[in-house]
């Protein structure tokens, strides 16, 4: 039991994941923060633990037809279809902007084949502004996309092993929740050489317009995110933390400091904030301040003391 002692004036907020030092454990979730620049008018990027960029693939990707998004109860469905400018344009045009900030850049990426995954990782490997790679093996949006890797432990192992060979950057593997036993994929990707795991990506979902009897998304199926998924995400992070040695980043429905704390207490070393950025572009700054306040109030000198402090 953590004993509240006295009020701590300046709790230590820094954490380390796979060798990258973060000012604090809060960063955006890929695809909800663009390339950082989009949100720079609203939030100081220097405040963040890291910036995580929109999923990047070998070739530019057009994405799905519209409608691509739809609000649901305490959440939203999206089927953007991983629209992005492609890795070469990303390196040429997008990364430069982020170099002016004193904040590590984590580049989320994906591929349609394991070779493509490997090739993107290799091209990003020589880019100095890239602090780490986040490998999306879990996006449910694309018919021939990540879903195969993330739900098949053998395919996940093979793809991560290949990427591991092609990059010396810290490698975070982002897991899908759409599996029967997440501990199996978690162990497979750890064995393949992942330095850290992040979870969860969106849960597959569907909504129907009862008047037109059509799916609300052009893609029929989309990924559910937002507050609605948080209890599921906390449960999955809890299970993965039990199963692996590598650090875990918790994602799913975080919009307040209290939400982030749940993930840290079950053992996540850091958290990512997704949909909440749309609702409040300053959400991450409020969460960071809230975490500090909590540590002060609870007499916690170092946020690392809180991580994994779950009482069972």
């Amino acid at each position, binding site marked *: 039991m953590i004993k509240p002692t006295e009020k701590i004036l300046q709790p230590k907020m820094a954490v380390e994941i796979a060798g990258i030092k973060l000012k604090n454990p809060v960063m955006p979730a890929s695809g909800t923060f663009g390339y950082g620049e989009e949100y720079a008018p609203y939030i100081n990027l220097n405040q963040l633990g890291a910036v995580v960029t929109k999923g990047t693939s070998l070739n530019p990707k057009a994405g799905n037809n519209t409608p691509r998004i739809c609000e649901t109860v305490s959440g939203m469905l999206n089927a*953007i279809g991983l629209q992005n400018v492609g890795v070469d344009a990303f390196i040429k045009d997008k990364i430069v902007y982020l170099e002016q900030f004193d904040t590590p850049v984590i580049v989320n990426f994906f591929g349609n084949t394991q070779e493509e995954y490997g090739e993107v990782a290799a091209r990003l490997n020589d880019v100095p502004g890239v602090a780490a790679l986040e490998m999306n093996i879990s996006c449910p949006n694309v018919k021939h996309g990540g879903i195969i890797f993330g739900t098949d432990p053998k395919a996940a192992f093979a793809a991560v092993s290949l990427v591991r060979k092609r990059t010396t950057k810290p490698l975070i593997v982002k897991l899908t929740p759409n599996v029967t036993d997440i501990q199996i994929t978690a162990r497979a990707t750890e064995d393949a050489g992942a330095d850290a795991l992040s979870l969860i990506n969106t849960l597959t979902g569907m909504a129907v317009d009862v008047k037109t009897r059509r799916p609300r998304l052009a893609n029929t199926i989309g990924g559910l995110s*937002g507050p609605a998924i948080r209890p599921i995400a906390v449960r999955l992070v809890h299970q993965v933390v039990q199963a692996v040695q590598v650090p875990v980043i918790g994602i799913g429905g975080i919009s307040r400091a209290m939400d982030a704390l749940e993930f840290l207490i079950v053992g996540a070393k850091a958290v990512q904030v997704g*949909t909440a950025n749309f609702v409040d572009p300053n959400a991450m700054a409020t969460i960071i301040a809230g975490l500090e306040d909590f540590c002060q109030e609870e007499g916690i000198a170092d946020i690392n003391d809180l991580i994994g402090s779950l009482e069972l």
Partner: protein
Amino acid sequence: MKNLKTVVLSNQEISPGYFRMQILAPGYNKLAKPGQFVMFRVQRSLPPLLRRPFGIFRVGFMPADCDSMPPKEFIELIYKVVGSGTEIMQRLHQGDPVELLGPLGNGFDLGVAEEEKILVGGGIGLVPLYMLAERMVATSKVRLLMGGRTRDDIITVTEFERLGVETYVSTEDGSLGDEGLVTQVLERKLDKYPKSTVFACGPMPMIKAVQKICFERGIPLQVSLEALMACGVGACLGCVVKGAGHTEVEPRYLCTCTSGPVFAAEDLDWGNSEVSTVVAGGCK
């Protein structure tokens, strides 16, 4: 551009189902351009989760409660109650906390002064045209063609008249003004004033008909589009429309929130019906 935590100043029904809301908005008089919008947070708690996009009808100053205070800067939204978010909005009162992200989007290109302008508004699509008219009346002849299903959909026309805009009203059921579609009025006006530039906002079928008419006559056209939006700042890529030259092989998607909501007609792909699903597929 910032997120403003602010309060409602007033909120009144102006026609059945249509409301006018004034919101305290320091800075907006200087910042807001005609055709821009805000992402409006209806309330701090859930639901709804996402913000709602609304065009800026007008900006202004109102006298403070006492003489020693500076006048209050406000923006005005005009909205139609259509779903969960706007249902909550209609129940908001003076002093209720709300948030504004904006002003967002590109806004209209005012074009050449002296040129004759025709504004085409379909129902709630009238909203972004008011500030545009305000800016243009000083130097251009401005005509407003306002269409709706019935008389209840015809809003704020007298306010345009007060600016010095020549207004023409039409309703589909003939309950106010000419009976018929606003696009029929547009054809008649273009016959008479063929040198005009057109600005249109309204339901997608109207926009498409306007585009066809203007395209056939070689008339310059700007349209303001609606799209489902999550972020409003170009980050989620939920709000895209197909740009000119879009093909399955070489897709060209434009964000309505950052490349729009106003588009020059020639920058969009009018070749298929996909654009309409952006709005028609809303989560009603």
